[in-house]
């Protein structure tokens, strides 16, 4: 299939209409990655579930969790998924400024969530739950910390996407880039849905 050489950088991205499945390489890759992430978070969650009751001399989960506070945090993250979807639909309509608006709002909500986590952690440390205090402490901070790092990376991705949309540096399908960032973001939200229930709402 002959193509003109002027098709330069644009051609670099894998057009859906040229692939054997009709799906793009990037989207396939992201769903595969998310499938593998299930095993990553599954391992951390299982470790937590095994060790949640082993508190040594440290505080018990129910003694330090602030369910109302965490509920608000969870709600914030949940709403960020909505704003993310709105960013995707804006991108599909070709509305760059709307897309950037919703991406930014999503990033702000995500950052708020992370801020809430940091506040929570510092409060827990003050109340006697350190990383090395007990198995509960180590597993809790590792699980929620890993999740928090994923959210932070997500916020970075969102802001970077805003940046490169502004600088018009997206090669390939802009709406798909936003969609793929969105897939990652929703997954991070979905992991929290599980963590919120298993860690916070179900007492050990």
């Amino acid at each position, binding site marked *: 299939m*002959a193509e*003109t050489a002027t098709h330069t950088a644009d051609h670099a991205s894998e057009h859906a209409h040229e692939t*054997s499945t009709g*799906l793009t390489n990037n989207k396939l890759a992201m769903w*595969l990655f998310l499938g*593998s992430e299930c095993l990553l978070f599954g391992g951390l969650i299982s470790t937590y579930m095994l060790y949640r009751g082993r508190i040594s001399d440290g505080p018990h989960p129910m003694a330090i969790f602030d369910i109302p506070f965490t509920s608000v945090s969870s709600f914030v993250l949940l709403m960020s998924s909505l704003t993310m979807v709105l960013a995707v639909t804006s991108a599909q309509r070709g509305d760059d400024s709307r897309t950037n608006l919703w991406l930014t709002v999503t990033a702000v909500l995500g950052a708020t969530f992370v801020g809430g986590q940091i506040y929570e952690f510092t409060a827990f440390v003050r109340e006697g739950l350190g990383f090395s205090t007990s198995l509960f402490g180590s597993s809790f901070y590792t699980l929620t910390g890993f999740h928090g790092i994923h959210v932070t990376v997500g916020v970075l991705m969102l802001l970077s996407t805003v940046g490169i949309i502004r600088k018009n540096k997206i090669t390939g399908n802009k709406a798909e880039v936003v969609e793929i960032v969105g897939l990652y973001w929703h997954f991070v939200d979905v992991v929290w849905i599980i963590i919120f229930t298993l860690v916070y709402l179900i007492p050990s």
Partner: protein
Amino acid sequence: MAIIERPGTGTTPVVVTPQQTFGAVKRPVQTKGWREWLFTVDHKKIGIMYGVVAMVFFIIGGVEALLIRLQLAMPDGQILSADKYNQMFTMHATTMVFLFAMPMAAAFANYFLPLQIGARDVAFPRINALSLWLLIIGGLVLNASWFLGGAADGGWFMYAPNSGPIFSPSNGVDFWVIGLQITGVASLLGSINLIVTVLNMRAPGMSLMKMPVFTWMILVVQFLLVFSLPVITVALVLLMLQRSYGATFFDVSQGADPLLWQHLFWIFGHPEVYVLILPAFGIISEVLPTFARKPLFGYPFVVFSGASIGLVGFGVWAHHMFASGLGPVSVAVFSVATMAIAIPTGVKIFNWLLTMWGGKIWYTTAMNFAIGLVVLFTIGGLSGVTHSVAPSDTQQTDTYYIVAHFHYVLFGGMVFGLFSGFYYWWPKVFGKMLNEKLGAWNFWFMVIGMNLTFGPMHILGLQGQPRRMYVWTEARAGEGFFNLGFWNMVASVGSFILAVGVLFFLINVVVTARSKQQAPLDPWDARTLEWLTTSPPKEHNFDRIPVVHHLDEFFHRKYEEDTATHTMKKVAEGEDLVRAEEEGADAHIHLPSPSYWPIVLSVGVGLLGLGTIYGVPMIVIGFAITLFASYGWILEPSVAEEIDFEPSDNDGNTKEIAPLG
């Protein structure tokens, strides 16, 4: 673009000078010499580099094994202290599994998978390069431990709490953790890359059930990797956090359960052994039909059994833990599951045998190694079946009987399969055929050496010699036929015979490199699409992407059925077919451009990892480099833009860079 040329005209690519810069450094566009290799994103060059790196580590791991065998050749061995011995068997296994076997499979997969499916590269060429450089960095980090306080010494399975900070205070385990974490990321990226490549980049007409078996086995391996690597990632993270940051995951005094590590490690570790063997199975599934002059018997069964092995492989891990106190219910369940997984493997063995049955066998070195795999893997598989019987395993576990089993399947199976692949595909990759006489010496020394080394270990194990024991004494060696001393000596002698066999291979490589021969492009009258290319293939692989109508497409283009006699008659040679492709070549072919971001990113990641040993400043620097490289990568188009090229003086040849109208 690396190549914008009219294929087949024989003109050299234009010399280009990149204009555009990102940051301070111009992106590589057209590179020669060492830069051509360092910045390449071409799957073939990456494949060759994987092969070289893997071979280097094969030799290092082999030397480590020889030192072990020297130590155990005589009673009260003095060659290695207990501490050094622990490091030696740990690094031997770790090196062989992660730095030889997996990269060598990656070498074959990288080089041949795109060719077998009729593609010009993989789905994500820069990520492909990143995987290679991450492997190299990871391998360097792992082996740096030898010089920086001692290597890891907890066994390749690194059970915690033994591998924790109290019982393994030196940095050896830290280097092990970081090295494997980095190589793990490399493999994970590679697995996503290859799955997308197979799903999305097959030539028109190549449905999944028309793909070569090698491609299928590699695909199954990638699924095994993508779903098992995260589990060892968790284990490594937990161990790293314990060792470097005071976590309590394996602190029994706090209530930790040592089985946590074992589960996490083996949930990865068992699929991993199928990761190791399936590529070799794929290779001989190409070699056996070619040299038996018959199609593979039962292609769908071979494919489906490979997929079943992959799936069921996730359900048997605790057979590595039969003696750990799991309890009778768990043990029984895993025992039955382990027996079940022997079935699909048995299916493959029968399919290979039936492929050879009634064929006109051509005993080349490649074929000999392939037949060797079928025989030796079966022996290893039989001992494996005895392990699946849990009460029996209680005697066998942690003895040399286990060592015998896995070396028969890994050396007799996997390594023989890889060597079969070397001899089979060398002419395609390097344009020269490996010497068959030296190949015979290579093969026979390896077969004899391997059986002399690992055969006696069945006896040693059942007579009670434990694994990981740095010394044995005359007093406990027993008498008569079962004298452990005698069989240890036999095994040690065997290991050196094996080493000579490997040496013959290396000599063969050098002799071949020096020879002036030019291999034909289809020396074996093979069956699959990678042979529809020059030897070595052109940079863009295929002048025109082939349209596929059959399984074994290349074979069906050369042979047609004679309706009178119902035999296959040759109607074209490989050379004729490739010439026809050249004549119908695509006018413009775009290939992704080289990039240095993969290397830069790898260095950043390496520093990030080492920072968990050497402190926060290094983490910060590593993170900064990683971030910088990530942005550089994202902002760099995978194909260099037009502005990066200066057209050379027009010499009258057809060198269209940018049609101006």
